[in-house]
Structure formats: structure tokens, C-alpha cells
């Protein structure tokens, strides 16, 4: 089972990379994905997306999912 992890903006900078590839157990939560890959506390207000949709830390991920972590958006 493989999860693609992506980081954007200040989170990308703090972690020093664009993302990670994670071989993961089924039923793992987004929070667990962060814990394993980032290995630091998530910045306050970190937003999570699963497969390009806003999600939350309790969401379970499946094989092939893309999980993204980023700060509050500031477009427009």
C-alpha cells in the first residue's frame, strides 16, 4: 500500500521537501500519515486534503491516496 504525501508553502519549506512516498498500513489516519512522514508537530492551522479535497486529521487513507498538508490558503 502506497500513499503519496505532498507539502505546500510554509510547510514545504519547514520540512525542506515537496513530499514523501509512504508504504502504509490500511486504515491509517491522516494524522498518522503526518506523524510518520513529517516527524514534527504540525503547525497550528495546518489544512489537510485527501485526493484534492479538503479533509481532516481523522480521515482514513487508502492505497493510492494523495494526502496534502498546507497552511491556510491566501489566493485571490
Amino acid at each position: 500500500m502506497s500513499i503519496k504525501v505532498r507539502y505546500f508553502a510554509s510547510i514545504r519549506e519547514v520540512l525542506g521537501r515537496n513530499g514523501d512516498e509512504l508504504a502504509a498500513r490500511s486504515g491509517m489516519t491522516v494524522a498518522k500519515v503526518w506523524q510518520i512522514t513529517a516527524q514534527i508537530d504540525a503547525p497550528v492551522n495546518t489544512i489537510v486534503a485527501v485526493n484534492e479535497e479538503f479533509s481532516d486529521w481523522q480521515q482514513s487513507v487508502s492505497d493510492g491516496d494523495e494526502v496534502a498538508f498546507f497552511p491556510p490558503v491566501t489566493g485571490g
Partner: protein
Amino acid sequence: MTVIVSEKAFLPWQVLADYERLRNGLQGQIGAATVFVGTLRSLSQGRPVEAMTLEHYPGMTEKYLQLICREAGEKWQILDSFVQHRYGRILPDEPIVLVAVWSEHRESAFKACRYIIDELKSRAPFWKQEQTDEGLRWVEKNT
């Protein structure tokens, strides 16, 4: 409904002229168009801004811009909508975003246009990094 996310600078009025010229099928129906253009100012919180870099989440950005336009079309009676948003390096006075809505009457056009830009600012995955005389800094909150 058209959504464009692109790196190159654009001229909003030229974009709209081209878009309307090539559009088919709404002859005689449009009574109102409402447009919003967001531009980079050269001052941010009192500091001169030399440039801004907009990072985005390719794919998710387009998906949410389309979703927001669809939502606007469900909430108000509109005939067409158009959004263009830049990413990459942007200079002061350059447009960042263009939103346009066409409808029969002005109420729907104003409401839908405002909805799209407000939702875009809270849900489309873009992140602004300003380059000021103090260096680079991530914009933390949208105004």
C-alpha cells in the same frame, strides 16, 4: 463556465474581449455582466512589495475553482462564469485574479461574482509569498 490557472501575466480586459468574442450561444440573453479584478498592490502592511510569488496545488486549484463556479450557478440564475488566476512570480500592478459572471439581471451577477471571489479566497489552494525589503514572507491571512 471556464476556469484558467496559468503562470503568464494577462490583461483582464483583453481576456474578456476575446472570451466574449469566441463564446457561442448566449446571443440576446445577457443583460448584465459583473467583473472583479484583483491586482497586486505595492504596499503590504506598510512595507513596499517588490514582487509576490503565488504557489498553488495544481489540479486541486482547478477543481475547486470549478466547484465554486458551479455552486454560484446553483445559488443564482447566471448564464456563464469565467475565472482566471495566476501563479508564479507577480509584480505590483499586475492582475492576480479575474472573475466574470454573466446573467439576465444584475442582482444575480453581482451576488455570484462576489461569491466566487470570496470562496476562492477561502478555498482555492493558493499561497502568497511576498518579497519586501525585509525579505520573503508568507502571507498568513487573506484580506
